[in-house]
């Protein structure tokens, strides 16, 4: 059994007893990466020297009998849009290929304080824009379940790395589904916390009103541990919520008797692959057998969520990405003769096609004459979508449906058809627009052998219930124990 198949608590007990060292864990991680990375290509860069030094430091701490942090010694991979001090952070963009941040993201500081060990930086769609990790400027990442398929995106490296057993857990970021959709495609657990629960400070901004950092793990218990470590109010992030953080780990009671589950008919109908629908229905039966009541509900504005998102997110992106002009950081085009030329050349050479497409879409939607027709209109529809959720949550504890309408698709299948690719986000995007928490957990396999994910969404700041339901399901099924052969 791989070290990483062990429960977190068992690993910590073995460390305490001296049966295992942090160096063993870190060695196991790099060994597994050496065995599998040529196939999976989950990483942009490895940070071997620092990881081994940190392991040694933690082992010394352990030998002095000091108390262990919550994630003590656990090897972690970090999506390459979460900035890491003195370690190159590229956002999978040629433009930032040489960018070495001078400070850490708050989430990184918190991981460090909880004593996890960063192994390296994970591949993604450039600036987190995409649903397949085919928009990385460096290389594709491959789905560990079948290397002909995409791992999903934009946190494709984060999901593939955990599925391949290369790291104990990873961090991703989710703007329209970028943690949950790749988690579903790769058969692992991905949690998007409530907007504002985890600090966005040091997460390279894509769409500021939607972006959230969250964990990707191989089971729900680990997800609760990582969330516990990273969730906290951050005074340097004006969008960080000042709320009390509950104990997520003790929330995993396994008891969901009397829980009220709403299943939106809009997420179980046309457009959802019949095999996916069948797996979700079977999963709902499991929850019913555990004492939950399951009823059909309606989120009437669901069909408007994707068009709303694809106006709002690119608009915010066009503004956020204006900073990449080659003046203060990044790779500057050297062919320019004057300042304006330098801006144009740097951006044109440094940014990839999906990023340019979204910048232009956003610039257009925000431009004079079109602002009311597109941007303001989309913000108003966002209100309607949020109200849909509020209405359902008045009577239900969680909302459950598929994470994505299909299982992972083949590499190259959708890359030239942005609109079709955007529709893969239909189940995840409404959650981001409403700002609520949601988790994707494995709930079976399609006939082609690819994993299916179930999405469980909850009320704002009610991660405890979302995790409890996910955990109860997991304890009564075997799907999360399956591993790809590599």
């Amino acid at each position, binding site marked *: 059994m791989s070290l990483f198949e062990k429960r977190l608590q068992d690993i910590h007990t073995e460390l305490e007893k001296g049966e295992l060292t942090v160096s063993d864990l870190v060695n196991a991680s790099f060994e597994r990466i050496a065995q599998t990375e040529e196939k999976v290509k989950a990483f942009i860069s490895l940070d071997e020297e620092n990881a081994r030094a940190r392991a040694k430091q933690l082992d010394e701490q352990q030998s002095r009998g000091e108390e262990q942090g919550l994630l003590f010694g656990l090897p972690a991979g970090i999506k390459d849009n979460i900035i890491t001090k003195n370690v190159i952070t590229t956002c999978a963009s040629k433009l930032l290929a040489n960018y070495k941040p001078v400070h850490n993201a708050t989430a990184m500081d918190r991981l460090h304080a909880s004593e996890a060990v960063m192994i390296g930086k994970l591949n993604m769609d450039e600036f987190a824009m995409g649903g397949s990790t085919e928009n990385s400027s460096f290389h594709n990442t491959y789905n560990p379940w079948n290397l002909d398929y995409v791992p999903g995106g934009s946190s494709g490296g984060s999901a593939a790395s955990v599925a391949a057993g290369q790291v104990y857990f990873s961090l991703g970021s989710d703007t329209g589904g970028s943690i949950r959709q790749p988690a579903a495609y790769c058969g692992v657990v991905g949690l998007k916390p409530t907007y504002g629960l985890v600090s966005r400070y040091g997460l390279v901004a894509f769409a500021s009103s939607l972006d959230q950092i969250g964990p990707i793990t191989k089971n729900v218990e680990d997800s609760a541990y990582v969330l516990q470590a990273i969730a906290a109010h951050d005074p340097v992030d004006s969008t960080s*919520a000042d709320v009390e953080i509950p104990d997520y780990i003790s929330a995993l009671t396994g008891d969901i008797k009397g829980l009220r589950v709403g299943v939106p008919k809009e997420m179980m109908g046309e457009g959802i692959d019949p095999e996916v629908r069948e797996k979700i229905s079977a999963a709902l039966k499991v929850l019913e057998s555990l004492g939950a009541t399951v009823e059909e509900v309606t989120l009437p*504005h669901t069909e408007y969520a994707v068009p*709303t998102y694809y106006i709002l997110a690119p608009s915010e992106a066009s503004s956020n990405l204006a900073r990449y002009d080659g*003046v*203060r950081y990044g790779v500057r085009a050297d062919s320019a003769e004057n300042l304006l030329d330098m801006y144009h050349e740097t951006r*044109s050479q440094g940014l990839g096609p999906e990023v340019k497409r979204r910048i*232009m879409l956003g*610039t257009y939607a925000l431009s004079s004459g079109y602002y009311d027709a597109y941007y303001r209109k989309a913000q108003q529809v966002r209100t309607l979508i949020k109200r849909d959720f509020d209405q359902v949550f008045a009577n239900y504890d969680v909302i459950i449906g598929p994470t994505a309408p299909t299982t992972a698709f083949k590499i190259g299948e959708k890359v030239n058809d942005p609109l079709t690719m*955007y529709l893969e986000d239909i189940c995840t995007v409404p959650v981001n627009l409403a700002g609520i928490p949601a988790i994707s957990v494995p709930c079976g396999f399609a006939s082609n052998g690819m994993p299916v994910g179930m999405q469980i969404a909850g009320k704002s700041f009610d991660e405890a219930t979302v995790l409890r339901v996910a955990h109860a399901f997991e304890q009564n099924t075997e799907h999360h124990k399956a591993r790809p052969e590599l």
Partner: protein
Amino acid sequence: MSAITRNEVEYVAKLARLNLTEEEAVKYTEQLNSILEFAGKLNELDTADVPPTSHVLDVYNVMRDDIVRPSLSHEDALRNAPDEEDGQFKVPAVIE
């Protein structure tokens, strides 16, 4: 909603500080049109009395106490600069 023209795409690219090749201009005109046509679906909804949501948290004007404390050093701020001189970011001449 009216379709976006090739000229508008080129104008938007200019606003966004992007140069487009001939091929890109053609491709983006086609793709932006199909995405905007899709977004036109939002006009099915009457939103006259609906307030816009700019972000979901019920907070505004988040302030910290105005206390002097250490920040990024001058050296750190310049560490990633593609070009610098005398402690400043250096860019091509703006004025002849």
